């Protein structure tokens, strides 16, 4: 019997995906049997995509069945490649969609990470519009949301998505699997402008270093040694919580430390409650470890997507504990998180005054910032600068608020 394998999904509930069966043959060229609900509009395009992908994978003779439910080209490419690999017909680097210009923007160490939206890595239909909901980050997840038998498929789908989907400025993140499987995930995605790798169930600095080193090797191999991939280890166990500071300091590329409470509470032998008393120490530990290491502490996800009030309270609590961000699993949670992360009016008013005073002191070459008769300490200035930046990011303050402020204080607005 000829090597045969399938990939993808079909059936009445399936959207924006396709199912592929590849059967290798000894001769006769490619026979592509297509069934698609968009055949009258994209039938030619689907066949072309299939032929080019198979050609790129070195398949000259095969019978290919394609049952399409409106998949876009990069999805079809990923599914075909998965089937070909599963049939043992290809071991090379695969067929990468070209890197679309919308996928080439960068990130910075300092950017806000208030919200990060998890997307299941093997589910293409959520990917295309995710960026429109304006999360600070989008996580293409290869770990818990992907069934063990689909890890290979998700890896290729995520790789292709990183090269084709416009995430509209959101930081491009991938949660890899636990090591060592996670190192294989890196191979697929490292050269596709991934900004941040999330390392799940991180328990030692060794794991961080292993990911870091693999990233370096892969970027070197891709001929882009100057590219930077940031790391966000996730603390999800007692052992990880104990080692949090060392983990955060394990590499200069660690930019944030996240906490994951489902696994953590299981690990310490208890249940996760809404109140969260059982995880208070771990959360606080992560905040302190992250701050001590000079990186950003990021809180766990809030998983009840219907409870917006509960989410709001949970974000306010996270902020009060010192966290900079919160995970989310539904686009409707993003706005609530950003609103709850925004500085309170009073806090913002004071921060603005401090920033104005700071600028004045800078301009006048003074070493000390003072507000009225009161001297302002540097950390307070630093926090005020951050508060103001946060307010600008959240749309509370106009970009040019300083100019407007200067104008109104000089009476210019009255002219």
């Amino acid at each position, binding site marked *: 019997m000829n090597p045969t394998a399938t990939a993808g999904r079909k059936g009445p509930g399936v959207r924006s995906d396709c199912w592929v069966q590849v059967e290798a043959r000894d001769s006769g060229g490619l026979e592509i049997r297509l069934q698609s609900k*968009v055949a*009258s*509009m994209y039938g030619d*395009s689907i066949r072309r995509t299939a032929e080019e992908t198979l050609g790129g994978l070195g398949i000259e003779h095969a019978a290919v069945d394609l049952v399409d*439910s409106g998949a876009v*080209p990069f999805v079809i490419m990923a599914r075909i490649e998965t089937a070909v690999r599963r049939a043992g017909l290809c071991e090379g680097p695969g067929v990468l969609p070209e890197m*679309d210009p919308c996928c080439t923007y960068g990130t910075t160490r300092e950017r806000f990470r208030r919200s990060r939206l998890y997307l299941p890595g093997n589910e293409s239909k959520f990917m295309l519009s995710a960026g*429109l909901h304006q999360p600070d980050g989008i996580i293409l997840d290869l770990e818990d949301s992907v069934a063990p038998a689909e890890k290979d498929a998700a890896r290729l789908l995520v790789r292709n998505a990183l090269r084709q989907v416009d995430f509209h400025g959101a930081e491009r993140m991938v949660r890899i699997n636990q090591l060592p499987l996670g190192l294989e995930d890196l191979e697929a995605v490292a050269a596709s402008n991934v900004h941040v790798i999330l390392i799940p169930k991180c328990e030692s600095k060794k794991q961080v270093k292993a990911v870091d080193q693999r990233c370096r090797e892969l970027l070197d191999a891709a001929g882009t040694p100057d590219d930077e991939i940031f790391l966000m280890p996730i603390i999800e166990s007692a052992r990880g919580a104990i080692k949090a500071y060392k983990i955060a300091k394990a590499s200069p590329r660690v930019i944030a430390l996240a906490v994951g409470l489902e696994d953590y509470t299981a690990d310490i032998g208890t249940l996760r409650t809404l109140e969260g008393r059982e995880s208070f120490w771990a959360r606080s530990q992560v905040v302190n470890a992250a701050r001590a290491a000079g990186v950003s502490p990021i809180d766990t996800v809030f998983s009840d997507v219907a409870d917006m009030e509960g989410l709001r309270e949970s974000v306010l609590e996270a902020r009060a504990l010192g966290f900079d961000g919160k995970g989310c699993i539904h686009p409707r949670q993003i706005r609530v998180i950003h609103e709850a992360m925004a500085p309170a009016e009073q806090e913002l008013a004071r921060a603005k005054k401090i920033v104005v005073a700071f600028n004045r002191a800078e301009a006048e070459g003074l070493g000390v910032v003072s507000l009225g008769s009161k001297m302002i300490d540097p950390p307070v200035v630093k926090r005020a600068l951050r508060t103001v930046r946060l307010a600008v990011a959240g749309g509370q303050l106009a970009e040019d608020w300083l100019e407007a402020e200067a104008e109104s204080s000089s009476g210019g607005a009255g002219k």
Partner: protein
Amino acid sequence: MTARLVENAAGRIVPEEVNGKTAVPFQGVGKFRPEGRKAAPPLVSCADYPIDGNKVVDDLETALRAAGLKDGMTVSTHHHFRNGDLVGNAVFEAAARIGVKDLMWFPSASFPCHAPQIAHLDSGLIHHIEGSMNGPLGDYCTAGKMRGLGVLRSHGGRYQAVQDGDVHIDIAVIAAPTADPFGNANGLTGPSACGLLGFALADSQYADKVIVVTDNLVPFPCHPWQIQGNNVDHVVVMDKIGEPEKIVSGTTQLTKSPDRLLIAEMTARFVRDTGIMRDGFSFQAGAGGTALAFAIYLKEMMKDAGIRARFVRGGSTQHLVQMLEEGLTDYILDGQTFDLEGVRSMRENPTHVDTSPFTSYNYHGKGNFASMVDAVVLGATEVDVNFNANVVTHSDGRLLHGIGGWQNCLFSKCTILPIPSFRDRIPVIVDRVTTLCGPGELVDVVITERGIAINPRRTDLIDAARGAGLPLKRIEELKAEVERICGGTPQTPTLGEKVVAVVRWVDGTVLDSIRQVLE
């Protein structure tokens, strides 16, 4: 005997003859002027009707026989129960027992629950359907299996066609949740209450014979009399005329899709931030999930800003009812209740007013409400770069939706189409719509998850939206963005030569034809 095809003023190829009658090709918005006098039903004498006012007969079959059902007649029914209608099918089962053929079914709309009519089309009992065809009947029509041409009209266009004599109804069958033996009827009360009976108004006024079917017969008088017994020939009592819980079906469910919610919210912001939302304003939102979500967002924004509308046009839903009861609008002017809260409110609130296609939409009247509405929010299956819109066929040519009040609503002061920019790789923003249902000059704003495109004719709206910082794009930019995602410009589906249905404009002229879909 295929009718000659000509190009109309919209550049669409249409037949000059439809189902044996001459048809006027579309001449442009507001161009066609009909002449002559309205149609009228035959003169009758009350001497021929029971002196005690009791017009009840044994059953539907008896009523149809008494009404003189014959081969080739036109029989109408209505969709006040939407997908829960039981009378449309029952009428044709009775007609089958009588043994007639070649009837024209003239429903105000058909739904998937009417799929059993396909057997009657196959058997020859029904010759063809003139009326919106949703679901299986639409597929039957576009597959080219129907003997006559399907004719799609708006709610207002249906009233116009009956009033002008374009369609002569031989027998109208009106399902009424409450009626008296004289034929007075309403939709407000009874176990099958559905709200109002506005779609049956023209039928009761102009049909030769009118049959009222009810499952809740009350002693004279049944009041309010939305349908007047003086127009009614026979009354029939059935066990059950409809399943009102199925009124909320198909298009009338609130969306859960985050992208659609984003579009709905952006639409509400547009209405607020361009200044349309102000004290005394009015709006109408259709039955689609996105339009329903829009109404909820707008309601919150009105509350926050302390704004009160003068009137809101229904299709009413629980959300509009809440607005009325919370004092956010003075009136609901309702054409159709979309859920049971709407039914209750119409029964209880004197400011929840029932309207008909005559008052709201009829283009051949001395004015109508449609052009007085400040903003209307409607769905569409496709919009092209000239803002022409399609609401009846999918991009593959299949007929799947009715027009409803959609064409009539386009005359609002600001017509907004909130739509996804693509559905499952099928672009919604296209070069040329498959079927033209609404001329682009009447479509003002297209709101997608990827940005807002305003018709260049509406410089006032462009200025207002730009000033408010809304995410504006040219419609060509939206199209390019969608085609990048979908993997290029789609092929044009190859459709058959055969015309299977036509779309009438609100003035009765022929706006476009629908071609057979090849398997």
